[in-house]
């Protein structure tokens, strides 16, 4: 299996960390993985994205042309990448920030009010992890335990509270049924 996910949103939403958590989980599960961020002036307050591949095969091109999944955290990102998804691809979108419906009918769209949920949980910076939870649930890339294990290793041991919050939001996303 090969999972090719594009994470996209504004700078500061934790797009790169969301992608890193998936790449990290893949690495722990002995998959081949790559994590390719956009860089340069693009990153200065504008849009931000990263391409994450998790595969049983060696990763050839790390650039994703036809993503099997999209995590979109703002409207411009959904506009930009919706058309690129493979038929049957999964779009996990933050419906707090993206109001429109999908234009395509051959993809599965999962609307998660991640920003609202995170705000209500008092963890406004962790909307990204809610979407990661939902992504893993809907793609079946990893079990929840595998994901949890990866994030536990990824968050510095010196910040137990941050880890706890990350796991809470992951779980909220994983269990969210919209």
């Amino acid at each position, binding site marked *: 299996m090969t999972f090719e996910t594009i994470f996209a949103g504004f700078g500061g939403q934790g797009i790169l960390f969301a992608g890193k958590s998936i790449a990290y989980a893949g690495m722990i599960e002995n998959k081949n993985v790559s994590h390719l961020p956009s*860089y340069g002036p693009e990153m200065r307050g504008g849009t931000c994205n990263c391409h994450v591949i998790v595969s049983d095969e060696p990763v*050839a091109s790390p650039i994703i042309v036809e993503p099997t999944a999209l995590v979109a955290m703002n409207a411009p990102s959904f506009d930009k990448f919706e058309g690129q998804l493979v038929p049957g691809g999964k779009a996990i979108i933050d419906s707090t920030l993206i109001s429109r419906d999908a234009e395509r009918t051959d993809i599965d769209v999962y609307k998660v009010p991640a920003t609202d949920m995170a705000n209500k949980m008092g963890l406004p910076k962790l909307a990204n992890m809610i979407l990661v939870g939902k992504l893993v649930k809907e793609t079946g890339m990893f079990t929840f335990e595998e994901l949890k294990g990866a994030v536990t290793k990824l968050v510095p041991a010196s910040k137990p509270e941050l880890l706890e919050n990350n796991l809470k939001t992951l779980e909220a996303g994983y269990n969210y049924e919209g």
Partner: protein
Amino acid sequence: MGNKVLMKGNEALAEAAIRAGCKHFFGYPITPQTEVSAYMAKKMPKIGGVFLQAESEVAAINMVYGAGGAGARVMTSSSSPGISLKQEGISYIAGADVPCVIINIVRGGPGLGGIQPAQSDYYQAVKGGGHGDYHLVVLAPSSIQEMVDLTADAFDIGDKYRCPVMIMGDGMLGQMMEPVEFKDTDTASLPEKDWATTGTDMKRKKNIINSLFIEPKDLEDLVLARQKKYDEIEANEVRYETEDIEDADIILVAYGTTARIAKTAMSKAKAKGLKVGIIRPITLWPFPYEAFEKALADGKKKTFLAVEMSMGQMVDDVKIAVNGRADVDFFGRTGGIVPTPNEILNKIEEIAGGDK
């Protein structure tokens, strides 16, 4: 997962250098290699090493010359416009037989160009960007693991042959994260640096690190001796990877980032029933002519397609390698545009269609 860690190319490369015993780094800020410097700035003080942000690229490479001449494993890192500035120093370093490692995280050019991935510094790296009869050993990794492995090798090659070694990556390799494993390095077999300026301690004759030889005969003798060293490097240090070159009608030739995209294009072409293989040079100098000999051994008609992020710089070496024995074609994007697998596939199909 073994001892794998998920790391950004630029940081993995810096860590690999430190593990290879590099304790001196001199650099100047430029995108997209900044993480190399930042990593060194953070780590060097903790291991008793030196990170120095120089006043210019020119100063940085000359500090490298000084430190390398003084016997240290030393590295500098920059990107295309900065590497242009370093060419003076690189020529002196080659002319004084000083080992060092130079990182070029290539960006689009010419001039200030852009900051996105490119391979348009091939001529500069391989054909000698500075003045005089010299070569750089040029290593072109195409994964983060290879960045790590080749960084360690670069220091060994430099010390073994007393020559500057360049690692040529690009912004994509620099920024990308992949799992890497660091291997233990063993430098025991490398020659002692009895030529370095370490102070005579009044126990030996003085050492001179120098590239000035005012008598033409002296200079010619030295250049000829260095040429022998280059011959040795060509005999011993050629690295490349091939995939399915036996029986292929079309053989892609690509290095670094481009090779990975070319491999995706190759899979797509194979799925369509086309016979496609790939040669991936890992050393750009010395160029892996041997791989082409293998590919040409069956005497069948075939096409070599060079794929580059430039307007066709490596394709010249492909032509030299093929030497008229097969067709050579080229596909490239430039200015910081990374070619897509489908673009390359289209070119492959165009070549295959033309055969029919």
